[in-house]
């Protein structure tokens, strides 16, 4: 895959993730106990030999910068290629934030043009999956496609998703759906493989006409004029675009089969190494059906939950159906149920946080309840 460079959009849909992205981009959203969402895309890229990677940020990207450092944990601290992070400005010296993917690509066209690779893989950062892009490239070449778009089979919900209708293995129609469907459809994963020159000429053309939406202003418009090939991702693929999907997709990972597909597939999923100690279970620990990261101390009950690194659950405390992010603390006899607590949240002794499966409560970073 020496001929492919990667471009990751660090921010997308973050409005709907509200409290969880106040302090961070979607890319750096914690996921699965020790990861950030972007780890999956970065790791898939690296494992497929894509080592020239640009990340376009939009705002709140301190946590992202802190997480990726210069890519050492992904083996991306390279002399040629490696990671380039682009600040959220349109062009270099302006202070205007970019508005859509077209504008974002336009603003880094110099970087894309200068890179020696012939192809570009575009990806959002709100996807968790484990995939070998070598196979995507092989399919792209076999189909003689201009654009290959990754799709998976799923039902539409109220989230904004791109529905892909195909005929004879080619994309026939594309539209955005925001209404729930009863049956599986092919939904776009916002990952595209395309030749660099084609991408840049399409982007330049549309940007010059004031268009910014890649899906609407390029893909839908080019239907019929360029050959679009759908590549079906059969393994588990999670798209996180609001608090509900974040919660649901997190809980799915408690299923060993899903974990197998996400973590033991083609790619090793790397993340920032934090050198935590293993988790300590104390006298009164009772942990069931839960995913527990390193560095926790558990002396209470944990059930159907995900604990990130450094979480403390004290004696008599109960955590059920919840996601407790890094350094969270549930003190004696505290109780957390159907909740997502962001980093460094403390639930003081005896307090209760409780939401509903369909509406998990979110506690923002650094809060003490």
């Amino acid at each position, binding site marked *: 895959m020496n001929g492919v460079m990667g471009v990751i959009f660090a921010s997308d849909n973050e409005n709907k993730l509200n409290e969880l992205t106040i302090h961070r981009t979607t890319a750096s959203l914690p996921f*699965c*106990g*020790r*990861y950030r969402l972007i780890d999956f895309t970065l790791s898939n890229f690296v494992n497929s030999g894509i080592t020239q990677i640009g990340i376009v940020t939009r705002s709140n990207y301190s946590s992202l910068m802190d997480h990726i450092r210069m890519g*050492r944990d992904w083996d991306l601290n390279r002399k040629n290629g490696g990671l380039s992070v682009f600040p959220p400005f349109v062009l270099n010296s302006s202070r205007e934030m970019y508005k859509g993917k077209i504008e974002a690509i336009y603003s880094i066209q110099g970087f894309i043009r200068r890179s020696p690779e012939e192809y570009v893989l575009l990806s959002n950062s709100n996807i968790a999956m484990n995939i070998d892009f070598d196979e995507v490239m092989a399919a792209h070449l076999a189909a003689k496609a201009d654009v290959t778009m990754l799709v998976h089979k799923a039902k539409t919900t109220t989230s904004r998703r791109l529905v892909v209708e195909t005929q004879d293995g080619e994309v026939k129609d594309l539209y955005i759906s925001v209404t729930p469907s009863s049956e599986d459809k092919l939904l776009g994963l916002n990952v595209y493989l395309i030749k660099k020159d084609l991408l840049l000429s399409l982007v330049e053309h549309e940007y010059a006409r004031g268009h910014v939406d890649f899906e609407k202003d390029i893909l839908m418009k080019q239907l019929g004029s360029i050959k679009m090939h759908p590549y079906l991702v059969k393994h588990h693929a999670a798209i996180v675009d609001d608090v509900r999907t974040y919660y649901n997709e997190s809980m799915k990972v*408690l299923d*060993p089969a899903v*974990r197998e597909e*996400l*973590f033991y597939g083609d790619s*090793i*999923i*790397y*993340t920032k*190494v934090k*050198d*935590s*100690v*293993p*988790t*300590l*279970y*104390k*006298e*009164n*620990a*009772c*942990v*069931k*059906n*839960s*995913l*527990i*990261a*390193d*560095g926790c101390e558990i002396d209470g009950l*944990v059930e159907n939950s*995900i*604990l990130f690194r450094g979480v403390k659950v004290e004696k008599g405390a109960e955590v059920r159906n919840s996601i407790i992010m890094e350094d969270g603390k549930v003190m004696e006899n505290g109780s957390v149920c159907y909740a997502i607590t962001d980093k460094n949240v403390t639930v003081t002794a005896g307090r209760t946080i409780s939401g509903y499966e369909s509406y998990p409560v979110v506690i923002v970073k650094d809060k003490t309840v």
Partner: protein
Amino acid sequence: MKSRNKKECVAMLLAGGQGTRLGVLTHDVAKPAVPFGGKYRIIDFPLSNCINSGIDTIGVLTQYQPFELNQYIGNGQPWDLDRLSGGAYVLPPYVKGKEGEWYKGTANAIYQNINFIDRFNPEYVVVLSGDHIYKMDYDKMLAAHKAKGADCTIAVIGVTIEEASRFGIMNTDPDDRIFEFEEKPKQPKSTNASMGIYVFTWSVLRQYLIDDEADPKSQNDFGKNVIPKMLADGKKLYAYRFQGYWKDVGTISSLWEANMDLLNASSGLNLNDPSWKIYARNSAEPPHFAAGSAEIQNSIVSEGAMVLGSVKRSVVSHSAYIGLGAIIEDSVILPDAVIKAGAVVRHAIVAEGAVIGEGAKIGETQKAPVKGEWQIAVVGPGVKIAPSVVVAPAEMVKEDK
């Protein structure tokens, strides 16, 4: 213009021989590469101590096939040792002149690598052992060495008078200057046991190594030859008193005990210390999973492990698997080991990649543990124990059974 490779202090880590007292655990790997504490290897402790103490140039002297250590250490990145100059170098005895020779003793091992040390032109050399679990700031010891203007400073730890006859004992004057060194004395005069950690002024040590090598009667050992010779010559040797947890893990039972010390806050062995992290090569595994059927108490469990059974007072290392209904008590399960459904493991060490068949019984399965009388069963790396097979307490299993 100054020398661009100069280092004030270089560490030389004596990674030891084949560690025969650890039996099957060191059959294929050097002792420092033996797993410890769920996600570490023994060598992570001295390496992390070095980088935390500001020492970034380390020679790892191993008698053994260097490849495993070479690969584990790699570019040194996990320990922040991927520096532009310096880093960690694995130094096996290499062939020179006609054929080359094993490291004859601890002093000879350093002697054979004088050229390596000279390349960094250091003022001080720290000599460390590769089979101790402890956290120590060598920089403070170096500061003491400098303050005393010492030729050699030896770290000592207080032991009980009963234990003292098992150690090298340093007898010192009130200023901590060592006037006598006794190896395992029957009638110990003090309780300052050598921890096997030395700071030497390199110019002094260098000459002693050359002289020691020239002496055909010498065993080329620091404790037996070099230190006594320096004392006899009236060199300035000082003891540096260390407070804190320190354990030699050169035997099965001490290795097991040190693992158990992690479960016990009062042991003094606390690795959850942001100011003194112990680094390890990361296994890139997802968090561990405790299934609905899991029972885990008084134990530590590391990343990538999968627990369906019952784990009490045990260490479960990364990527280990504990099957449904399996019972693990007072045991150490090393990385990638698989304990199948219904197996019982008590007072045992199950090595990397070993597979314990369904319903097998490993170690002490009857008696409750009595301190000091533990008998630890060991299942070797990659060994497969067939279903329902019984492995006796203190048994060491080298081959499939």
